[in-house]
Every structure is written in C-alpha cells, then in structure tokens.
C-alpha cells in the first residue's frame, strides 16, 4: 500500500502515515488563528476535520498548502515539506480544493481540467486515463466540456473542482467544505463520488462544518474549536447523536 518506511507498531499492523503535522501554528498578520495543532492522516483513509464556523478549518488547510504564515513541522510521505512553496506541494501530490471551489470561471470546463494536469510529467496516456475516470465519475462534466466554467451550477462546479484535483494525480486530497451552498441532494451525489474515490485507495482530508454529512464517509475525525484540536475520535464514535450533541456543547475529551 505504501512505500514509506515507518516503523510498524508491535501490537497491530498500523497503517502508514501519509501526513504528519506537529505544532502547526498559523497567523494572519499578528493574529494567531491556529494554535499548535498536531494530527496525522493515515494512508487510504478519509479523515474529517469538523468544527464550527471560524474554528480555523480553512486556515488549517491553507497552512498545509503554505498559503498563510505558519510555523511547525509537516511531514508528507515521510519528508519534511515546511519549506516548500504552494506550487511545489501541489507537484508533490498535495492537492487542495479550496473553500469556494477555486473554479477559473472565464475558462472553459475543459481548460480547468487540463490545468489540473499542468504539473504532471507522467505522460499523456496516464493523464487521459484520469480524464476518462473523471468523466465516468462526473458525466455532466463531459457534456459541458466546452462551456464556461463560471456558467455551471454550484454542484457542477464542485464536481469540476474535484475532477480537476483528481487530474493532478493527488496522493492526498484536501477538501475545504464541499457542502458549502449545495442542496442536500447534490451533496449526497458529491459524497457518493468521494466514497468511490476512497474505495479506489485515495487518501482524503475533508474539512466540514456539517458533521453528519462528513461522518458518512469518514474513518476518523478531529474536532477543531477556536484553533485547537478539541477531540480526536473514530468516526463511528462521533456518529451517534449523543456524541454529536456533546461535541456542540463543547465537551473536551479524547476519544
């Protein structure tokens, strides 16, 4: 599954860690928004970071992508990457769909997808295979290839953003609130496709405000509150109503 040379724990065959974050602190100007956050993502899992509006979820992802001022240590596939610029991180397979989707509106749907594979050096064949996969996953994108990306509906734009990220051949996909502004039915569709990607072995770090949605496909979850990690738990443990209620009432415990 993975080529990283992490030591396995003796008792169980521990999954290998693809992203290991220690003491990550992020600031806007002089305001510290993320306070010494530590967490990890296992290879092949869907990790969810939950938290209310303003908790620092987007900042967390931006910090990983070197888009805000930050300190701390970040290891990606075993290598320290704190010094790398955003485009280099993307080239290494750390691909983010930003909050609001980051669609290039004036360009066509196909142009957006093509730009997804901009940094790839593994040949036309592999890229075309991924393009076919994206079109199978989201047939509507194929129909609307030549349309201006800005003219797509919100759901279609989210599909395009995910499709474009897939074309970058991600090792770890970072998704910032895909549910934002989408009808529940459309979001279900998106979740289904994420489930499919997960089943194909893609590792996903999903940031969401809407816990019930995200926990449907999550393996593990963290809860972020005011820039701190408040809870870490297996997704099943958070999925119960009682646990969720506790979460929103502000209980601090480690699951």
């Amino acid at each position: 599954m993975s080529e990283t040379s992490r030591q396995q724990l003796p008792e169980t065959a521990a999954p290998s860690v693809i992203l290991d974050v220690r003491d990550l602190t992020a600031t806007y100007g002089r305001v510290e928004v993320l306070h010494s956050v530590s967490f990890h993502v296992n290879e092949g899992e869907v990790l969810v970071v939950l938290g209310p509006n303003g908790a620092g979820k987007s900042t967390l992802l931006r910090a990983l992508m070197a888009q805000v001022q930050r300190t701390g240590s970040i290891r990606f596939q075993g290598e320290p990457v704190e010094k790398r610029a955003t485009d280099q991180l993307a080239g290494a397979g750390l691909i983010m769909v930003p909050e609001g989707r980051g669609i290039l509106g004036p360009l066509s749907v196909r142009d957006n997808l093509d730009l997804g594979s901009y940094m790839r050096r593994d040949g036309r064949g592999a890229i075309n295979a991924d393009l076919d996969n994206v079109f199978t996953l989201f047939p509507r994108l194929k129909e609307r290839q030549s349309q201006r990306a800005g003219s797509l509906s919100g759901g279609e734009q989210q599909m395009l953003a995910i499709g474009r990220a897939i074309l970058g051949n991600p090792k770890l996909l970072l998704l910032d609130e895909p549910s934002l502004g989408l009808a529940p039915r459309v979001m279900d569709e998106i979740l289904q496709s994420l489930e499919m990607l997960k089943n194909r072995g893609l590792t996903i770090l999903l940031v969401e405000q809407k816990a019930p949605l995200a926990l449907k496909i999550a393996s593990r979850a963290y809860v972020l509150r005011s820039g701190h990690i408040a809870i870490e738990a297996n997704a099943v443990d958070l999925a119960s109503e009682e646990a969720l209620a506790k979460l929103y009432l502000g209980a601090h415990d480690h699951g």
Partner: protein
Amino acid sequence: MSLYLQFLASGLSVGCIYGLVAIGFSVIFNASGIVNFAQGAFVMLGGTLTYVLYERAGLPIWFAIILSIFLSALIGMLFEVTIIRPLWKRNTSLFIMMLATLALGVIAENAVLHTVGDETHSFPPFTAGPPLQAFGASIARQTVWMAVLSVLIMILLNLLYKKTLLGKAMRACAVDRNVAPLLGIKVERMLTYSFGLSAALGAIAGILITPAQYTAYHIGLTFSVMGFIAAIIGGLGNPTGAFVGGIILGLLQSFAILFFDAGFKDVIAFSILLVFLLVKPSGLFSSYVEE
C-alpha cells in the same frame, strides 16, 4: 476616393502598430495589474537594436530582426526578475511598480541616446519595390507588412492563450492568483514570461514601423501613450480588444489629419482617452478575467 483609401491604409497600418503596443499593455496588466509604461521603450529598442545590428554590426536584416526581438524579450524578463519581483514579494503597491516601469523607460531612452546617438535611424523595408497601386491609391509595401504581420501575431497570441497549456496557465494567474499555485503553476515565472512576451510585442511593433517612418531614442513615450489609449479604448483586460482599440485609434488619427490638420491627431487621441476614462473606463470589450 483614392485619397480616402490612402488615409484608410495608413490609419489601419499605424493602428495595427498601436494595437501591438496595446496588446503588450494588456498582457502585463492581466498577469499582474501593472500598467507597464516602459512599453513604448521596447518599440524604440526594437527598431534601434535592429538598426544597430544591421547597419553598424553588418548582420543580415532577418537575423538582426530576430536577435533584437530576442534581446528585447530578455531585457523585459530581466527587468521583471530584478526589479518587479522583489517589489512584488514585498507587497509594494502597484503604483510604485508602475513608477519603476516609467523609470525603465527613461533609462532605456538615455542609454540609447548616449550609445547610439540622438539622430533618427531607419533600415530598408522588408521588401523593396515601388508602392502597390490599388483603386487609384498608392500604398507602400511596408504598410502591407505592418498590417498583415500584426494581425498574424494577434492570431498567434490568441492561439497561445486559448490552445496551449502555457497560455491557459498564464490566464489562470490573471483570473485567480491564489488558485493558480494550487494547480502547480509558478505565478512568478508566468509574470516573467509576460514581461518577456510584452517586450517582444513592443519590439516587433518598432521593427515593423521603423522602415515606414524612423526610430530615435525619444519615440518611446509617444508609443507608450498611444498604446495605452488604444488599450483603454479596447479594454486593458482583453488583448484582442486592445488590438482593435489600436486600429480604431489609428483610423481616427489618420482621418483627423485628413479632415483637419496633422496637429489634430494628438488632440483627437487625448480627447478619446478622456472620453473613455470618463464614460467607459473598462473599454469596449470585456476583460477575459471578468467576462
């Protein structure tokens, strides 16, 4: 009738040159929001370098042309890397960066004044021969070259932006500078390319117009101003629009000379600038960033 045709041809061809300069403005404006006032200096450099390489160094004309386009592009890219980029990284205001481009224009002007001289220079038209006769009008061969090559370059530029991954990446930087790096695009490198491309466009404009008129160390400012007005007419954010703006400006100037007097051509140009700045500052054509 033939007189009108004559002025039409001359307006069109000069308009194409303004158009090329205007595209140069729009290429950099789109990539950075900077209005590059050194644009006209590259028109002067293109013509002057070709003159120096051809007349003084004795290189074949085509080689001199290609070399001077290449050198101009290099100067443009060097300027971006050494001056604009450090300012950019420090989050300097656009206004300061525009002042830097103005300074570059003045430096280029003085460098040419002191190395090449203060006389006017020219080199032979691309093809020799008497003017072409059409419907009673006589049209210089270089005029045809100016129009045809400018349109060709505009088409090539459109292909670059619409069909190549590099061109699309440049547009991506223009549309959303935060999203482009997430796709692995090096925004700074695209800005360097934009300065190189824009300098090359200016140089080509200078090379096309020099055999029809002349070049001299001081012509840059006029072309900066006319190219800028053209870009404002067409829309700074849209290269094709900027080119069309150049043609409109060239035609208006040409007919101002015909109907009034040569002295009116700048009056017309600046009046149009004021009207557009007041009434339609975004230009006739929508920007490909906002469209």
